């Protein structure tokens, strides 16, 4: 049986990087094919080539036995290829309907847009996905999960024969992900061939039929999913055995030493009042579903947004956190959840990104920056978090997602911070890098740093945190510790007591 899609000996270089080298991949009709690899392994690049967004330097794309020559996404669409992008491809100011049908509007007899028709069609898609999303507000005002569903609905509406899903579950809760898998199974029945990219091993074993593993731009292996195990795949991916991605559990917390005491914090005048204590050397998890208000609290805490009322003390002294700069001065740092829009200065090199808020360290008697010292420090920090980059001068935009994340982490390591808030630090990050980041966090707590980790991944919260605050609808529904910190109780509180 000829495969539906066959990528043959694809190679691709970017200036200074060989992103893909002689990669081949077959996808059959009615197959879900997992694409697995570390950050920067070249997965997204391969898929963008398939969709005509990049052009391969060498190799062929063969669909139904015919070699295709794509000069843009439109050509790929016409050949029946659709993609759910890793980075959203939605227009923030347009509403759901306009986004879904962008470029393929339904028209009425006058040739004008047939909005009622499109709303009907969109409603059908949402019903199929079992979601209800408002149709006429700009999607910028929707939650990230809703936006992800719109992205999925958009791809579904293409009626593609080959559907690429590039990390679609990174922003979904487990139950939302399950809806998506149901849809994928339906599509499988309809003989659609799918490529599924995810860093979640259990998802791959839930939904996929075959798997291709990539490493450093090359294909390492492909096999049927039934003939392999997660550990096996991880070894192929990382090139070594990863025994346990979480560091040995050891509590560095000193529960007699409260570093940050949030006595009362209200974000909106009418909103709920939060109170919370963070101890020295502790890792406090913020658990909850996407959109449950964890980021909002963190941003309010460091003064990135103006809270309506705040009574906070740091090491026993009352403090006013009006701006991230005050927070920085007091030794509180935030690693934001969206590295591209909130974390990185994309035109900057790795070095400039890392030293951004440390520059005063490199000043001498005159307020001039000592470049040499700056570069050395940046290089050391990059080495300590193992950023994969040709040099500290490499533009940060050229790195893969995981490495970009490490650059932002390195920025905060340059400070003697007492409190670090990590907002979804491992979103879209491969297993190897994840375990490195976890180890790093443990190292920090051993030095007496306190950490708040916002995470939507239960295993992460369970594996790393000493204590967890569970959020539901903008409130802290529970604080769990010790025995109580288990997946049942977290899910119980995170869903407002519905799932007990």
């Amino acid at each position: 049986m000829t495969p539906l899609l066959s990528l043959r000996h694809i190679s691709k270089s970017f200036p200074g990087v060989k992103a893909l080298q002689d990669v081949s991949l077959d996808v059959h009709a009615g197959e879900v094919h997992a694409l697995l690899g570390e950050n920067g392994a070249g997965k997204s690049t391969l898929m963008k080539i398939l969709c005509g967004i990049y052009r391969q330097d060498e190799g062929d794309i063969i669909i139904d036995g015919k070699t295709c020559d794509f000069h843009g996404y439109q050509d790929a669409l016409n050949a029946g290829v659709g993609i759910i992008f890793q980075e959203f491809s939605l227009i923030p100011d347009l509403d759901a309907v306009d986004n879904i049908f962008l470029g393929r509007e339904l028209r009425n007899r006058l040739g004008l847009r047939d909005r009622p028709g499109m709303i009907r069609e969109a409603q059908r898609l949402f019903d199929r996905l079992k979601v209800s999303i408002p149709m006429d507000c700009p999607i910028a005002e929707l939650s990230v999960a809703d936006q992800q569903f719109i992205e999925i609905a958009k791809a579904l509406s293409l009626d593609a024969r080959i559907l690429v899903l590039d990390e679609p579950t990174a922003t979904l809760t487990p139950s939302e992900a399950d809806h998506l898998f149901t849809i994928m199974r339906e599509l499988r029945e309809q003989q659609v061939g799918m490529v599924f990219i995810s860093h979640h091993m259990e998802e791959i074993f839930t939904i996929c039929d075959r798997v291709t593993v990539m490493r450093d731009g090359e294909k390492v292996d492909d096999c049927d999913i039934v003939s392999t195990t997660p550990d096996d795949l991880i070894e192929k991916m990382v090139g070594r055995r990863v025994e346990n991605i979480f560091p040995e559990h050891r509590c560095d917390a000193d529960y007699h030493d409260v570093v940050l005491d949030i006595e009362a914090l209200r974000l909106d005048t009418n909103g709920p009042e939060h109170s919370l204590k963070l101890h020295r050397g502790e890792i406090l998890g913020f658990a909850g579903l996407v959109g449950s208000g964890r980021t909002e609290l963190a941003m309010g805490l460091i003064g990135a947004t103006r809270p309506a009322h705040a009574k906070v003390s740091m090491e026993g002294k009352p403090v006013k956190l009006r701006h991230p700069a005050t927070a920085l001065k007091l030794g509180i740092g935030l690693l934001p959840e969206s590295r591209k829009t909130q974390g990185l200065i994309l035109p900057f090199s790795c070095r400039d990104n890392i030293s951004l808020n440390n520059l005063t360290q490199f000043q001498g008697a005159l307020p001039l920056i000592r470049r040499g010292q700056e570069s050395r420090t940046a290089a050391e920090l990059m080495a300590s978090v193992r950023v994969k980059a040709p040099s500290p001068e490499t533009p940060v935009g050229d790195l893969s997602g995981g490495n970009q994340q490490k650059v932002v982490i390195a920025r905060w390591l340059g400070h003697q911070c007492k409190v670090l808030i990590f907002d979804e630090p491992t979103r879209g990050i491969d297993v190897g890098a994840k375990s490195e980041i976890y180890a790093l966090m443990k190292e920090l707590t051993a030095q007496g740093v306190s950490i708040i980790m916002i995470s939507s991944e239960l295993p992460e919260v369970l594996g790393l945190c000493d204590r967890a605050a569970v959020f539901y609808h903008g409130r802290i529904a529970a604080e769990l510790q010790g025995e109580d910190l288990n997946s049942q109780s977290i899910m119980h509180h995170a869903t407002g007591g519905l799932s007990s």
Partner: protein
Amino acid sequence: MSQLASTPGTTRQSLSLRLARWRRTPVFYPLIGFIVVFIAMAVINDNFLTSSNMVNLARQASIIAIIAAGMSLAILTGGIDLSVGPVMALSGTVMAGLMVAGVPPVLAIVLGLLVGAAFGAFNGVFVAFAGMPPIIVTLATMGIARGLGLIYTGGYPISGLPQEFAFFGRGSLAGIEMPILIMIGVYAIGYVLLSHTATGRYLYAIGGNEEATRLSGIRVSRYKLLVYTLSGTTAAIAGLILTSRLMSGQPNAGVGFELDAIAAVVLGGAAITGGRGMILGTLVGALLLGVLNNGLNLMGVSPYLQNVIKGLIILLAIYISRKRTP
């Protein structure tokens, strides 16, 4: 949580809901601002609210309003067109020159409009296909268009136009003066284009996220080319009215009009960064500028002080309408 939410409102809350939605459209604050200034002017000034002055006001606002309609498109896509003033002058002088050379008025007008469209397309090619920033492209072509107009006329205004040509600037149809009628026509077309066609959606999409729009399979460059062509065309239409009103082709006309047009668009609630705005807002913005000019003139405010007052009111208006976005 998303599963639980909203089934769009058909219930009794719909009125307050509709009001809330209306408040969130980009024209809400501009319209309020316009009404406030309008009433203020009417109260201060006896001569303001006469029907002849209303016609006068609309006629005066029409040229900037028409230019601003094209400017809206450019700004909506995240661009800008600084060349509108000189393009207006160039098209106008070409029309005048052709007529004086004996070309029949209708043909001369068509050719003049084509010159504007072609110049706009020239801008568009650089913006869309060479990927150069619109502000720079049109800054450069601004000088080019002005130079061409001056070379074409030798620097002197072209006069001696056929009497029937006065119709477009001084005539009226169905009791409405032509400049006002043309302005209404331009805005009607703009409204349908932006709100009821796929093309209009694409323009919003390009301004909102150009890369994502491209990834949706839309040929962004073509639409950008269209936008600048249309902006050149509206500038030429303004040139038609101006030339007909003045009954002479003025190569030096339109200095600073780009700034007035930008002000109209932004006063109309559009985001200067693109992706957000309504064409009717621009009309409101242009009329607001018109009311200010006319009202301050009627009040006999010194021309020097007028600059200051206009600037402060624009600042205030934008400040208020900004507040809403958190």
